[in-house]
């Protein structure tokens, strides 16, 4: 009996080893462990085994069954491992991937976002105003009298209604001061402005500005300086020198132009004009008071600063873009460089 079992074992292990695939192995399992299997028959023959041999034969029987089961599991694992290896055999990992299109925002949007995010960290909220404006909001309220050189049909687009396309986003200063309920007023306004210029490498008839205004009881020139230094150093690098040159704008006094020093390797450092700014002219406050019929903005009670800068110019400086028209031509080969 023991010899018979040994023979069953060796035959079975050979069959399992020889099984070429999963199906053959499953057949082996049935033929080796199923009802008609020799081992099953041998198990049934236990009744006729003499008593003194029962323990030894029983043990052998179990040992053969275990070894067959184990061999089946091992063979199954081997077959699966082989199949898994075959499934990835010959895949060329150096082939290019399946790609999807990748989009991105416009470089002008990216600059605007950068400015807005930085200014928001400093406690400014967004404001807006119409692009078709009244002469009052664009000029009169901004202390720019009717005979001011900037105020003419040569430089400004007008409509038959007498309205105009705003020449700067400073109009939003006036809109914000007209409508606000309480102080402080701390707003920024990115938006389009228009000038009656022929389009060439350095001019468009429309450009993007960001405007800032802060009015409260004790706003100082030092606050303006601190704000713009932080803003510009956030954009150009924290150690970028920033300087304020006295200048003239009708709606601020004192007024300044702000330069940053660009340092490009191998070149002389260069001051580049970035922004205009100043303390809100008392005449602007006086006009607002008249408009509001209250004294929230009384020129003797409040002070404020305002600043503005051109987004196209910033983009051209930051990315060394030589021709402003690239920003409005929307060539995908240009736009995707900012992804």
């Amino acid at each position, binding site marked *: 009996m023991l010899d018979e079992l040994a023979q069953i074992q060796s035959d079975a292990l050979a069959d399992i080893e020889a099984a070429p695939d999963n199906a053959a192995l499953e057949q082996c399992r049935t033929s080796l462990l199923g009802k008609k299997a020799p081992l099953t028959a041998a198990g049934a023959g236990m009744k006729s085994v003499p008593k003194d041999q029962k323990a030894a034969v029983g043990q052998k029987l179990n040992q053969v069954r275990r070894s067959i089961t184990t061999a089946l599991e091992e063979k199954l694992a081997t077959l699966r491992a082989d199949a898994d290896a075959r499934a990835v055999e010959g895949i060329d990992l150096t082939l290019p*991937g*399946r*790609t*999807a*299109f*990748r*989009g991105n*925002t416009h470089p002008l*949007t990216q600059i605007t976002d950068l400015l807005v995010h930085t200014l*928001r960290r*400093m*406690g*400014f*909220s*967004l*404001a807006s105003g119409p*692009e*078709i404006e009244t002469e009052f909001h664009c000029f009169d309220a901004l202390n720019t009298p009717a*005979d001011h050189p900037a105020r003419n*049909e*040569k430089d400004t*687009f007008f*409509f038959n209604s007498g309205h105009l*396309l705003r020449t700067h986003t400073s109009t939003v200063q006036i809109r914000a001061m007209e409508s606000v309920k309480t102080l402080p007023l701390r*707003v920024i*306004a990115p938006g389009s402005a*228009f000038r009656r*210029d*022929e*389009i060439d490498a350095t001019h*468009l*008839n*429309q450009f993007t500005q960001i405007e800032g205004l802060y009015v409260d009881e004790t706003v*100082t*020139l*030092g*606050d303006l*300086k*601190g704000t713009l230094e*932080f803003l510009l150093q956030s954009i150009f690098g924290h150690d970028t020198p920033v*300087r*304020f*040159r*006295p*200048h*003239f704008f009708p709606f601020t*006094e*004192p*007024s*300044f132009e702000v330069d940053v020093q660009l340092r490009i390797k191998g*070149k002389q450092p260069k001051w580049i004009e970035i922004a205009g700014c100043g*303390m809100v*002219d*008392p005449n602007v406050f006086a006009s607002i008071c008249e408009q509001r019929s209250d004294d929230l903005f009384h020129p003797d009670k409040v002070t404020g600063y305002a600043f503005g800068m051109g987004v196209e110019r910033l983009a051209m400086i930051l990315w060394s873009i030589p021709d402003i028209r690239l920003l*409005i*031509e*929307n*060539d*995908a080969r240009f*736009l995707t460089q900012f992804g």
Partner: protein
Amino acid sequence: MKVSLKWLNDLVDLADLSTREIDDLLTFAGIEVEGIQSVPQGVVAAIITSSEKHSNADKLSVCQVDDGSGTPKQIVCGAKNYAVNDVVPLAAPGTAFPSGFEIVERKMRGQISQGMLCSAAELGLAEESDGLLILPDTTVPGTPLSQIYPPIFDLEITPNRPDLLSHRGIARELATLTDRPLLIPKTPEIITQIATNAEITVSAPHHAPFYSARHINHVKVGPSPEWLQEKLQAVGLRPINNIVDITNYVLMETGQPLHAFDASKLNGGFMVRIATAHEKFLALDGEEYSLRPEDVVVADANGAIALGGIMGGEISGVTENTTSVILESAYFAPPVIRRTSRDLNLSSDSSYRFERGVDPQGVLPASALATQLIVDLAAGKPADAILTAGTLPILTGSVQLDEDRARSLLGIDIPAAEMHRILAGLGLTLENKSKTKSSWRIPSYRIDLQRHIDLVEEIARVHGLDKIPATTAAAFAPASPDDIAFDRLNQLRSRLSGLGFLETKTIKLLSSEEAVTTCPHTSTDDLVTVKNPLSEDHTTLRPSLIPGLLSAAERNSHQGATTLRFYETGTVFRTPESEKQLITLLAGGDSQPSTWHEARPRQLDISDLRGFLETILPVSSLTLIPSHSPSSPFVLEADITIDKKSLGLIGQIQPAFTRKIDFQAPILIAELNAESLWQLMNRADTFEELDRFPAVSRDVAMELPAVIPNGDIQDFFDTQKESLLVSARLFDVFTDPAGEKLPAHKKSLAYSLTYRDKTKTLTTSEVDDAHGRILAALKQELPVQIR
């Protein structure tokens, strides 16, 4: 304005300051230095004593030069335009050019070269030049070139500072900033008598408040002396003759425009009057101008002899034959000159100053200075009296300074004494002072100083912003409606980036024809057009973002793009001057980049664009209402609605346009109203319980007439009141144009209906009952056959 450093040096001693230091002084005084034309230090005049061909280089010569040092120098040179004995500029070793290039002694092809001979362009004296700059042969070797070509500053003077429009004005400012004495000579004592005489009448006192004229006889017109010619040439003026040069010189020196008439050409007395309508005036520039009653002229009995404050007349100008002149010095009202100059598109050094405002107290001294020069340089004999009419305006007065208010605006604790020092230095006179206030008399030339804030500005400017500490004043900032819209737009932008869309920016002005042909639902009446366009291409504000996107499509198609995915956000305009924010998408071409897996990707169709919208928008499904007559740019068009509210439109561009721009696939457009979108995004989203019981699906296939849109079927399912039905999803559309498997006028739609009960697992019979009810209703309401 061009300012010569040499000229300035006559008025204030700046010899110890470098060009760079003067640049900084001017810049921080608020005077923008647009450019400096200056020869580098170290360049001297040298005479070429011999020149031989370089033995080892075809294009080079070896020159011996005398630079006045006593030691001859050898220079290797590539130029050809000189001869021996020419005097040329020599840049000695150590000379640094603005480009950073520095001259060193070195060997060139075996020959030592002890410097460089320079061209005008290399010295910054010309834009371009050919060969060496040949200096006058009288030039003494060793003379620094900066002496022959002193630095010229090109300054931009802000409109509030007309007092700076002269060498004296700039000198006065620099003297103040550096605390130096001003060396302006005393006004010559020429004015012996002021006579108001019937010879001059001013009938336009608002246009010309003050007019003066002086007869100067026996003048000898001829060339100006060298010093005068040099000064004028340095600031870019061409010398003409001594009389004209003197008037130009006094203008550049003092800022007061003058004019000299040939007395013999005048008929009768002077009238300063308003022009008559269409009055003709032949100006010195040779052009004839037609005047209007708002222009001011100087006239004699025959008509206008000068356009007041702007330009003299051709007829009355000083020539070589002139023997007697009348010298005009006047004060013209700035707004009048500005308007005339602008309207006639005629400006001059004179109008530039009058329209900004000259110093009323400088009018007569300038006349005196010019008269003295005419006496000295043209042997003129002035009349005893200067004839005047009108009165000089008084434009400046006293201004109070409140020192505490000044400090609080500046944000620094600047002592009163320092403020007073600054104001006094600028020529203001302290009239009286109390503890914290002082009163200042403003000099007549500082017409910009009228208010308290103007004094504070002067203090800030002279004190310098670099001394003011940068402070921070942050505050809590609530989100405004603009903040919320900005954030939502950016959320949408990032979703669009994820779908491969590039953001465009286009010009908002376009031609009216383009607007009407490319903007849906737009007629000429809807257009907002500017009154004064610069060109036909930019007359109209865009009523839609579609034209800009189509031009982006055109440009990229012509660049060979096989995919177009663009969007733009921004303002559009419609009559009556109303503004709206739109978000517009354009897509077409390859559905994915072409790769080795799929070299010819599927082309996008309108379902793709709808899918893109459903991906980026906060709602998962849109309702499209097809239009039966698509408007102009579209061949297919539908309104997009959500909950019956219009959100915008979607469409496919006319194939004619697609062909025109050589694009090989349909171009699809969706235009959405931003305001409606933000309202959608406003909806509070509440948490929805997760399903705990399984759903059961039943498919239904139906045959129906092809003309019935799928939307009718979807609507039917979406509006069923059957509580167990949770969704109906289209999964197959079948048509057979050949009519073999299905009649050609029919189509087959297959829907998967999902049933679920939130409270329990459904039994088969419950689902069957519900499904049966739905199908029965479907057959009843719509002409479908269930298959």
